[in-house]
Every structure is written in C-alpha cells, then in structure tokens.
C-alpha cells in the first residue's frame, strides 16, 4: 500500500512538472510593442530631402513631416479676430524674419520634432529636447512666445490638427499607431491646458 502511494505520488509529481513545463512552452512571452518612433521608421538613416548631403533618422523625418503639416493646417485656419482658430498661438509663425536667423517656425518645428521623437522612443542625442517643460512652455508668463493660455477646447482642436497631419503623412485613423500617437497627445493635456 505504501509502495503504491509512493508510486502515485511520484507519478503525480513528474506529471505536474511536465504539465507545468508544457504550459510554459505553449504561452509565448508577451511581445514587447515597438516604440512609436521605431514604427515611424526608427533610427534607419535616410537622406534628408530638404538638406542636401545630410542624413536623418527616418523616425525623426516622419515626425518632422507630421509636425510641419500640423503647423500648416493651423496656419490655413488663422483668421484675424476670429475665435477658436488658434491664431493667438500660431499667427506669429507667419511673420517673415529675414534670411539670416532662425525663423519662428524653424524653432518651433525643431523643438516639437525633438520633443515627440525623444518621448516616443527616439532617444539618440540628435533628438534631445532642450526646451522648457510642458507647463512652462505653455505659460505666457514663463514663455513670451506663448500668445495666450490654452483651454481644453484649444487642445482638442490642436489634437485634431495633429491627427489630420498624421493622416496626410500616411498614418490612417484606424491604425494602432494613430491610437498610440493620440494617447501620447492626451498624456500631455494636463500640463498644457492652463485655462
């Protein structure tokens, strides 16, 4: 009887070990999702279409295209004395600043490209964001280039512009990449909305 019990216990032990092992083999380790930056092209070097002879990370170039398109869409809506078109925030981009210094848009485009690239996985030095933190950058008292404080409605509108810009640059609204980009923008709402 004792022998039977020992044999039964041994069988149970070996079986449980085998089943546990099988169970581990059957469940593949959850795949780590590639960063947004990687999915936009990552660190693959490509020729910069606007700077002849220079190379640029493909992920950074994708972000730059989206950022510039978003700015262009906002500028298209700028109207004097009209409410809700972000003109107070972005109209100064249209001012010519001569040909010897960085323009308003060059600075904004670079800062936004750095910020989005770095915070979505593009952590190479080329994407280092050296601007103000999000609260200071959107507070006219701390950043004289911020025309006025942003409201929730302003920010929702801005997200819409970025979404349309992403669409225009090949990121469809029904993709996971688009949803992830919107999630990043949403995570910035609290520090940016100050009105």
């Amino acid at each position, binding site marked *: 009887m004792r022998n039977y019990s020992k044999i039964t216990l041994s069988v149970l032990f070996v079986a449980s070990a085998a089943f546990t092992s099988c169970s581990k083999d059957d469940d593949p380790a959850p795949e780590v999702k590639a960063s947004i930056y990687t999915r936009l092209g990552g660190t693959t070097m490509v020729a910069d279409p*606007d700077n002849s002879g220079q190379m640029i990370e493909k992920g950074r170039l994708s972000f*730059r295209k989206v950022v510039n*398109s978003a700015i262009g869409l906002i*500028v*298209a*809506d700028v109207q004097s004395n009209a409410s809700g078109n972000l003109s107070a925030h972005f109209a*100064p981009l249209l001012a010519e600043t001569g040909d010897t210094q960085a323009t308003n*848009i*060059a600075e904004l485009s670079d800062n936004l490209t750095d910020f989005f690239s770095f915070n979505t996985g593009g952590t190479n030095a080329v994407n280092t964001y050296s601007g103000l933190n999000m609260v200071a950058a959107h507070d006219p008292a701390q950043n004289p280039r911020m*025309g006025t404080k942003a409201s929730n409605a302003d920010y929702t509108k801005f997200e819409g512009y970025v979404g349309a810009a992403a669409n225009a640059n090949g990121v469809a609204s029904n993709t996971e990449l688009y949803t992830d980009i919107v999630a990043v923008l949403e995570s910035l709402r609290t520090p940016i909305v100050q009105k």
Partner: protein
Amino acid sequence: MKMNKTIKKVLYVVSGIVVLFIAILLFHIITAKPAVYENPNLQVSRIDFESNIDSLQAKQICSDLRTIKGLTTDSIIVKRNVVVYFHNNKITNSEKVYNELMSKRPYEAKRYILPANMDNKKVCPIDQNSFSYKASKTINQFFN
C-alpha cells in the same frame, strides 16, 4: 590712516567681486553655443484664393508651386480657399513665390500678409537692435 586701510580693503574686495562677475559673464558668453536648427531658414507662407479650391484646381496649384525653386518637400496644404506652403527663406520669399505662381496662370488670389495686431510675438524676446544684444552677439560670434 586706519580708515584709509579699511576703505582700501573694501575697494579691493568690491573690485575683486566685479572682476569675478565679469569673468563669469565672459565665460558664459564664450561657451554659449548658438542654437542649431535642422532647417533654420524654414518659413511658412500662405496665399488666399478668392473662392474655394476644388480637387482639380488643388492638383494644378500644387503642381505649379512644386516647380518654384525654394519650396521644401513638406506637404502643401490646400484647405477651403487657402494654400499654405513651406519654403527656404534663403532661396526665396513669399512675395517671389506668389509672383511666380501668378505668372503661371491667371489665378485670382492674394498673398496673405499677417495683420500688425497678430504679429506681436517674435522668436527672440530681446530687442535685437539693442547695444547689449549686439555686443554679446559679437563676442559670441568671435569665439564660435
């Protein structure tokens, strides 16, 4: 005599502090690197058409704009009656682009010029005509 010695000491200390402050200021000016931007001469400009632009016209306008030297590869935005494009302001400017576009076809449009009341914020909050700005820029350029 004692008073004179004290005054001398105070003067030495004060001038030492002043020299130190000047040295720190010079160190900061010398070591400050000018900001480097990927496209420092990127400019955005806009042309407002008299009526809304349909898809055929949009194609035509974009194709005409693409033949003008100095435009970047960024998307040309066509929205309602407005066209927004990006260009390198070392190569061209909004007036030249507008004139060239108008010379290609009899478009009914006008160059968008920012109203003075909206042009209220500049890149640099410092008065770029001031002596202090020009002096620090000269020193900085000398060392960079």
